């Protein structure tokens, strides 16, 4: 007796086609989002430009992000810090007026977080800053950005703007620099 699966396939073919098309479509859509949608670059409450501050005027990163060298978190400057200069500088620009309205109302500016690590990663700025790792190594060429875009570590001198961080980036750097216990799970996942 001959048993063949061909008749069965014939019956199922339209359904099988549909499943295949749907699966390929899902993957394609996901891939398209990952490849063509630019890195996370939200519009901030004030159009603050790192290019003007850190690029054109060469203000050191640590001038505003003072906590980076002594704290796990780099910190965002208090509104008073912005106002410290802008009482005098560029007072007529609309964005500075916006800043002053926050200041006069004694309200904090709700900046949107761009660079984020999951809560299960223990990262401290202090160690990295004290080891003289440049901020741009992880944050990309911030001094060229009008609006902050998520970016990952520079590879061969070129930053991967638009690519979020992955664990491999940490590990590669820790390996290259022969960090003591740098590839130990417990170093970052405490």
């Amino acid at each position: 007796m001959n048993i063949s699966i061909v008749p069965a396939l014939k019956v199922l073919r339209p359904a099988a086609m549909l499943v295949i098309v749907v699966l390929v479509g899902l993957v394609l859509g996901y891939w398209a989002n990952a490849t063509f949608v630019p890195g996370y670059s939200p519009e901030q409450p004030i159009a603050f430009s790192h290019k003007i501050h850190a690029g054109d005027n060469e203000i050191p990163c640590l001038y505003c992000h003072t906590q980076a060298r002594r704290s796990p978190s780099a910190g965002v400057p208090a509104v008073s810090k912005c106002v410290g200069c802008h009482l005098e500088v560029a007072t007529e620009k609309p964005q500075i007026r916006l800043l002053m309205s926050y200041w006069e109302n004694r309200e904090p500016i709700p900046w949107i977080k761009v660079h984020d690590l999951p809560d299960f990663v223990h990262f401290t700025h202090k160690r990295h800053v004290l080891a003289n790792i440049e901020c741009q190594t992880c944050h990309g060429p911030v001094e060229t950005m009008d609006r902050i875009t998520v970016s990952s570590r520079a590879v061969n001198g070129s930053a991967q703007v638009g690519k979020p961080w992955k664990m491999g980036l940490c590990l590669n750097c820790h390996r290259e620099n022969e960090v003591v216990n740098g590839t130990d799970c417990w170093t970052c996942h405490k």
Partner: protein
Amino acid sequence: MPNIDRREFLKLVGAGGVSVGAGFMLREANKDPREYLIPHVLAPEDSSSGLSTWYNSVCSMCPAGCGISVRTYEGRAKKIEGNPSHPVSQGRLCSLGQAGLQALYNPDRLTAPMRRTGAGDSASFEEITWEQGLKQVGDRLDLLRAARRGNRVAFLTEGVRGHLAQLFESFMRQLGSPRLLHYDFDHPHTLYAANQQFFGENHLPYYDLQNTRLLLSFGADYLNNWISPVHHSLGFGESRHGRPDIRGRFVQIEPRMSMSGAAADEWIAAKPGTEGILALGLAHHIVAEGNYSGADRGAWVTALADYTPAAVAEQTGVPPTTITRLADSFVDTAPSLAIGGGAAGNHSNGVDTLVAVNVLNYLVGNIGQEGGLVFNPAPAGPALQQHRATYSTMLELAEAARQGEIDVLIINGTNPVFTLPPTAEFAQALAQIPLVVSLSSFLDETAALADVILPSHTYLESWGDDFPEPGVGFSVGAVSQPVVSPLYNTRGTGDIILDLARRMGSAEVMPWNSMEEFLKYGWRRIYQRGDPETLAQGFDAFWTSVLKAGAWGETSSGNTAFTLNPDVIAGIGVAPPEFSGSEEDYPFILHPYLSPNLHDGRGANLPWMQELPDPMTSVVYGSWVEINPETAEQMGLTEGDLVDIQSPHGQLQVPVYIYPAIMPNVVAMPIGQGHREYGRYAKDRGVNPIEILSPQIEPITGNLATSATRVSVTATGKRVKLVKTGGTSRDLGRDIVQTTGGLGVEVTSAADNSIPITEVTT
């Protein structure tokens, strides 16, 4: 695909398009949610993002006065630890102190001033403004003061020390009222009285557990709640393990094994209330054996003549061999130390008992010695012992209220409606007072009866200071500073009092605008005691350094030479304890003890303390009565059986816990549960044994003899399941409880090391 028709094709294209879109959205939806970075408007000086800021302050969860370091993060208190540079706590802290955070963040805190509306059962509280509340109270005080009737104002506070105590005193002096009462349920009145009688000092000496080699504790649960438990625990550890080749030996004498009893090398159960007789039995043996050779030896021989080992054994139930052995090792092991307190001091003969304990220290020369009992210098800050209220003082206050002699009663911190037995009728007395003002942070049983509530900050939000009592042999003080900004619309106790003082026209005498200002004024005097170097830096530098360090100290010491007043010797003697209720009707002696977790009930609104297992029984969230296994067997009781505990003055229903380390004719109950108010965690949970205590007093101090009540135990036939974390307390041949002789332990015969519960005749 030759045989796909148009229809089929369109279907596939449609499905493909939808799924591409779905894939796109799938990734979009999996992206992290938006987070914000909210900066400060003005950067605070002492807070930085990502870093904790620690503040040193003083714990107020019990009267020990431990120094604490509080970790704050972005302006919120996160963790309380002991302050390593404070000589009392030395970096350690007990569970109640750790749970102080839950007082701060308690969901049942009073968040704004309130006024009672309506009367009787329909009474409720409405929120008012501070101005309304302060005006209502301030106007009444002003009227009374102007009419020279300020003595109709009474001020009832928990035991406070330092400048807050002084502020209360000045306030009441302005009113011309002597009715300033510091009332704590667990204040060791009998210990103060015994020390006054024997040493002529009305403050406590320093008990140097750390350097002692043998500690005899007559009822003092020094590891849990006797005077300064954190410091004593440190001393206990040091004595056991801190010295090479010397291991401190600890003997605990009490009818029910406390945690200190469990940690001791030997636990001896003397009949309740006979601890002092046992101490004099030891003293008799010391003198009789010629181990005391002072000039007054003759007087001692006469005074102690009746306390022969045989007579004492008869009264206490402790065998004569144990008495002589203890007395001999107390002499041979120098330095040694005898302490007394807890239940032993809460009998009708409490003061005499604790004097008898002092006799032991005197006879073997422990007084003023390292490893013994060291006198403290007078506290550097205000010391106002004279306002300490006993049970009898509280009865007088209640009587005065009933007679209509009191128009205004201000209550701060203390909760007498819970901690006084109902026979005192304190709640009824409160109803007779036209204006009862509570400064409590919580709606406890007393605050619930107030007319106006002006809620105080918790200690983590307010200014204060403390001069621990007992000190540690030298002068210590510490400033309690706020570690967070106030969470709610509350005010500091000191600030409220200063405001009321202004309103009654005392601003000239009490000109300070805030407690902080008053503290600085007071600490200027302490600063002026400093050496030239400190003085050269100026007061502000001194103040900053005291706040930073969280402690201030001075290497002064107390009186070292001690001469006993010869009249004291003739008065030595301990009468048998008196109990309320006949032995036939009430066959058991009730041994109420302060819960190690909830203290006198103040910890009951802290969920951490509720869920922390009791160290001896491992029971959580509830009350129980401890009964000896033999007694339970005779009565047919097992764990969880609900029994009626009946005293001549009341009845409670509570589940049984079978406890092997209690005398057969004693039943023990923890104090702390049984609240009717005091927030969601405390309310309607367990029972309060204070409710059935007989109004038996200790005649010298007038304090309540809390251990002098007899009870009967009757099974109800009902059962509940006791919630506890422990399984069986027995080894059951599993070999899991192993004992070992430590370094330098004196090896004695097996009979000597055994716990003498079986020798006790009852």
